[in-house]
């Protein structure tokens, strides 16, 4: 084996020699976006008429919208006509053929994160179609879920098998008019997850933990819809700590959650997409719209996120507290290193009476990273006795990074209580010295202090995720103190 040749070059050589290029092309649409492209997407996916009409309305609205410029992230304009909006599920034949061909740096990261061996190959995009243990595990759990009446499937499958549910809830929380990228997503979204928890059912497992491999290849315009009927409960995990192979630079996902009376949805995300290199070249643009609707009384939606990846993150998981006594929560850790930029936060819109929301945001900036918390707490004129508490802390490591805090608070009810607190400090020299005096090396000490800073948020993650998240922080912080 010619070990001296970099894997990428070998992949390219093989690609040409084996002539896969034409095969792939035949199943993809050429770059560019127009109504005909949308009709072709609908045709290829065999979607019903209501989907076509909805996508076309979204597309026409998108054309009227300017590209948003209000956030604190900076990037070269995106050419939306240079993107191909449909490609068939990717053949794995164009990936590396074995783990030996994968960048050793990535493999080391998997090892440190404790990713199980059988998952590493799939995460790295290795072209192995052999059946993994996890797949059969997945099948087993699918049966268990079906027995309880829980629907958990791909969005495409949901459109085919449960069109009434899709038609009723699609766009009900994030309408296509919401923002530029939500409109684009509505017009062209490829696939995603659909989840329906029936009345009174407590979902017996963390959804998607066992399916994360299957979810790893959902494409750049992902759409997720979760509906929790009265008195139901579901905990959903998105993403994974391991860096995934991905060729698409732009990601514009939409997630919609609907919690009916007395229902609870917990949604946790760990995002670790390629952040670009140390000089800020490359990396994923992650422009996401996530919103939950607490539609029923006593419903609860909780977002937890750990964001360490992507070159640019633009993301505000929000909750509309419509039902009386409903509860919204947002727990977030966002880390930017090198030249990463993150503009992230939440919106808590209190409409119903006696609603409660909590915001805990921890931002860490290192290197040339730019980290911005942007949040809105809105208390409407009907929202008697509503309460919010927000705590936004920023930690700075090094003098070339930036931390920005932009909370908006709008209150229109005299019986509301809103409290917002924010602090920005650098990592403490005194604490660092104390750790070092006890023999803890600088990198471990920094990672320990940072995870201490993030503790309140990590505590909200499911146990196994929390351990991974902590390891992930350690890796992401490497080299921040010289």
């Amino acid at each position: 084996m010619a070990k001296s040749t970099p894997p990428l070059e070998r992949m390219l050589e093989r690609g040409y020699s084996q002539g896969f290029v034409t095969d792939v092309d035949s199943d993809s649409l050429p770059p560019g976006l127009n109504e005909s492209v949308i009709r072709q997407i609908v045709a290829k996916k065999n979607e019903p008429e209501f989907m076509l009409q909805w996508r076309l309305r979204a597309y026409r609205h998108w054309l009227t919208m300017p590209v948003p410029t209000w956030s604190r992230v900076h990037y070269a304009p995106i050419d939306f006509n240079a993107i191909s909006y449909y490609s068939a599920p990717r053949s794995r034949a164009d990936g590396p053929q074995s783990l030996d061909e994968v960048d050793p740096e990535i493999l080391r990261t998997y090892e440190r994160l404790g990713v199980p061996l059988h998952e590493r190959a799939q995460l790295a995009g290795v072209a192995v179609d052999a059946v993994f243990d996890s797949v059969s595990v997945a099948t087993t759990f699918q049966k268990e879920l079906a027995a309880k009446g829980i629907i958990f499937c791909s969005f495409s499958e949901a459109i085919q098998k449960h069109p009434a549910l899709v038609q009723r809830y699609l766009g009900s929380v994030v309408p296509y008019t919401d923002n530029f990228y939500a409109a684009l997503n509505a017009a062209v979204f490829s696939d995603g997850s659909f989840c329906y928890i029936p009345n009174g059912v407590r979902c017996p497992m963390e959804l998607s933990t066992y399916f994360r491999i299957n979810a790893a290849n959902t494409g750049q315009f992902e759409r997720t819809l979760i509906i929790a009927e009265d008195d139901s409960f579901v905990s959903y995990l998105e993403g994974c700590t391991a860096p995934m192979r991905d060729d698409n630079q732009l990601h514009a996902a939409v997630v919609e959650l609907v919690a009916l009376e007395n229902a609870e949805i917990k949604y946790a995300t760990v995002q670790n997409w390629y952040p670009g290199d140390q000089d800020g070249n490359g990396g994923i643009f992650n422009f996401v719209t996530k919103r939950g609707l607490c539609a029923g009384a006593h419903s609860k939606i909780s977002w937890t996120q750990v964001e360490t990846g992507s070159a640019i993150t633009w993301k505000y998981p929000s909750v509309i507290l419509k039902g009386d006594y409903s509860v919204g929560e947002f727990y977030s850790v966002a880390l930017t290193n090198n030249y990463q930029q993150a503009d992230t936060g939440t919106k808590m819109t209190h409409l119903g009476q006696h609603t409660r929301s909590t915001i805990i945001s921890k931002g860490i900036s290192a290197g040339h990273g730019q980290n911005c918390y942007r949040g809105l707490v809105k208390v409407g004129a009907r929202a008697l006795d509503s309460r919010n508490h927000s705590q936004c802390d920023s930690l700075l490591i090094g003098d070339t990074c930036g931390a920005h805090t932009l909370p908006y608070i709008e209150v229109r009810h005299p019986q509301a209580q809103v409290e917002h607190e924010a602090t920005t400090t650098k990592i403490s020299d005194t604490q660092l010295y104390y750790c070092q005096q006890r023999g803890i090396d600088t990198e471990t000490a920094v990672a320990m202090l940072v995870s201490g800073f993030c503790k309140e948020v990590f505590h909200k993650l499911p146990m196994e995720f929390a351990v991974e998240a902590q390891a992930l922080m350690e890796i992401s912080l490497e080299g921040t103190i010289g």
Partner: protein
Amino acid sequence: MTMAKRFCELQAHAPPYSSGWPWLNAFRQQAQQAFAALELPTQQQETWKYTDIRTLSETAFSDAPPPGATELAQASSAQQTQALNLPHHRLTFIDGHFQPHLSQLGALSNGIKLMPLRQALEQEQVLIENHLGSAVEYPGQPFAALNSARLTDGVLLYLPTDCQLSQPIHCLFYTPSGRHSHISYPRLLIVLGPGARAQLVEEYLGSSAPPANAAAQCTCPLSEIILAPDARLLHCKVLRESPQGHHIAGIHVTQAAQSQFHSINVTLGGGICRNDLQVSLCANGAQSRLDGLYMLAGRQHLDNHLRIDHLQPGCRSEVLYKGIIDDRARGVFNGMAIVHPGAQQSDARQINKNLLLSESAEIDTKPELQIDADDVKCSHGATVGQLDNDALFYLGSRGMDQQTARALLTTAFAHETLTHLPQGPLREQLTALTGATLTRQAGGEPPDALPHG
């Protein structure tokens, strides 16, 4: 007719005071060009998101003529019965016109210059050339440009090195009510030399009982404050316009090393009001304390916009703004602390607290931090809420009735913002004045029960 067009038309007229001084003409012309290049703010702009000034644009304001006998009588009576009583140094203006008969300047030690700006434009041209406009940048500040373009009169205060003024200077701007809509552009230039100390009060006063058909008025003042190393200024602004009195003001401060600026900004009345308070901490050790208190009622709209730039290491800023909002009034607070790259050891703190007293009142608050250095201590906090139920219960358990207990706690809430003022007549009068406003507000408040009583 759009406001922009109206103001452009205004620009076609010569300023009320024309000068043969080429420097001043160039200064005004440059400001006018800057103003013409700037859009008038709309709510699409982030810094004007919560403030709608279309009402102003629908009003045909004209430059205020010198006051007649009626206005003089109104002002004279207001000065005696309503205004703060700080008689040592007082400059009184009606609709922006200086009134020597209502003013008095106490004895000033050598080198101190305190005079109407119009007089300074003729007698102190070197001083004016060196300082006027030096603390203001027009981009993003159309009303600062407008004030400069229409510059006519106001106040000059200059203190040379190590000079100290023990008595506060009281600048009273009276807006008479009348049937015509007038606009005025007072300008204050305050320059403190190294080690100098002074106190200055800007009071904007409107008629306490305007007739029902009173027309809208507008005041558009701009204060420039330049503090040399180790200078200290206590700057107090009291806004008590009538409901027809709109007010769009700028206060721009530049601070040299070790200087201290203490601002107390009290708003008790007005129509649509906006304060842009901008402080640049330009050298090591500069300190700013910005305190504010607003008690809004009726349909008043107040937008306090603060921006503090930490440009150099070792500076400190502290903000405490508190508001009590009743009826259909709306308060807006935006406090932005910016720590620029390299401004290490910056200490920036900000607190905004609000009480809403009515179902139709609204508060929009946005404390902001933009930090581009790492060795900093920055924090902000904002709250909206009610009086502490535990405290109310405690007072009740000691035999105090609800209304008294509420009044006591509300007063304590408000007066925290005055605690940093030195003891003296200014503090006493502000305490009395805000206390009286609270009593009026409390009188109209429904005796609602405790939510969890």
